């Protein structure tokens, strides 16, 4: 075994008191992401294949493997 290897220590459970804080952080992150996603959606419309309906309908593959 190489010297880099170390013993396994199991991480401790996070204390329950942090939950409210964690929820607030998640909400904050959610807001941030929403704003970012607004920009992303505009960019998606620019690159999304034209005539989506036809493109998707025509996408037929033979089963593989």
């Amino acid at each position, binding site marked *: 075994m190489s010297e*880099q290897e170390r013993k396994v220590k199991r991480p401790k459970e996070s204390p329950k008191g942090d939950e409210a804080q964690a929820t607030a952080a998640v909400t904050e992150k959610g807001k941030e992401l929403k704003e970012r996603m607004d920009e992303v959606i505009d960019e998606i419309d620019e690159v999304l294949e034209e005539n989506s309906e036809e493109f998707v309908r025509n996408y037929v593959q033979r089963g593989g493997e």
Partner: protein
Amino acid sequence: MAVERVIGIETEFGITTRNPHGFDPVGNSILLINSHEAVQAIKAIWDYAGENPLLDARGFEVSGERERPSQKDNRAINKVLLNGGRLYVDGAHPEYSSPEVMNARDLVLYEKAGERVLEMSRQAANRLLPPDAHLYIYKNNTDGKGNSYGSHENYLMARGVPFEKIVEGLTAFLVTRQIFAGAGKVGAENQTDPVEYQISQRSDFFEAWIGLDTMAKRPIINTRDEPHADEEKYRRLHVIVGDSNMSEFATYLKVGAMAIVLSMVEDGWVRKDLALEDPVRAIKEISHDVTCRRKVRLKRGVELSGVEIQREYLEMAWAYYQGREASPQVLDILEKWAWVLDKLEEDPWQLHRHLDWVIKMELIRSYMERRKVGFEDQRISMLDLQFHDIRREKGLFYLLERQGLVERIVTDTEIEEAVEFPPPDTRAYFRGMCLRKYRDQVYGASWSSLLFDTGDAAVKKIPMAEPTRGTRKLVQEVLDRSGSVRELFDNLTG
């Protein structure tokens, strides 16, 4: 084998064009893999001698046609790559096999390198084709119309482990790991219950628990017994039940956790009774529930969710590594596995940077909200498909990656190196470096052999039945002092 393991992955890609009338997927796949100059410069054929995909791990041989193309066809449908991997045409799809690697992180690297090889080939092919015949390549697993193509993982393991133990130890793990390894899909297929969005691309297609087939009546545990290595010593476990992942994080955790569980199976450490009452039903039930709360029934009567079953495996893994040395990577995988299960239980949405099915679900949800459309809008199906587009400027996964909205495991520079050079610590090193150094003398290659044309009447073969040999450590010196293939043979045998 608690730390490292020989692993590899095969990816089948979807191929299409804007004007599909009269489109020939076989011809275009052949054109694709023969278009890129660096790939095409290697003329080695694929050495099928010794391959037998019809051997069953349960101990019998199935009748059927073995694949043996003519030499010309062989060269047209097979490309051996400088990184030790293989690019080929399998049926009506282009397919890439990674070289053999020794850990999950390298697997991510070489799996992504395959995407780059396909993309370079696609660009080269399109320079030869008129615009309306330009090729589009998707790394997904279904066309949304009931046709599926695969992503197959390969794990080398000890031959001595009875196959029943593998089945017993792995079934519940493989049925439930989609909660972090699924690539997400709009709708349901293959006569399963209707659903708007589900976790896995592939789960709808699994119809058997155990079997040799991969194309029809797909089994959760595949019994193909073709080790491409010393068959007295090794078995190659062929896992066909996974989705192709765009997310590096998902691939890393999928393969990393699997390798850990496999070590536990080998060492007799999967001791909890997690036998499912109906694995084929359970895999679909879990896929069809994006809350991850749905419980499936075990044989012993209790009901557990996918997260709970994964936790049982994780518990056993923590216990297994008590008193055992574990590499930093194994510890990293255990920590990520634990963290992901916690987040899945709280709210899967939190993994919108990590797991394909959540990344895509969030993308679709945001799109529907902003454009005020529902799942019936064809743009949503297009999002579902284009998420898997391998073009880095148009693929939607790559659009998110560019914006820093997905988690990464490896860097672009490392991926570019993995296109050119083999991994250092398996026999793929010898394969890749021989192709680099003696390109025109390599007559053929397979996973377990290299064939050389030394100018003599007969082709000379170097068998490579041991996947952990042929490494940089073992062969670099002899390669350095062998200016020609003849010298290489002299030095190897002298």
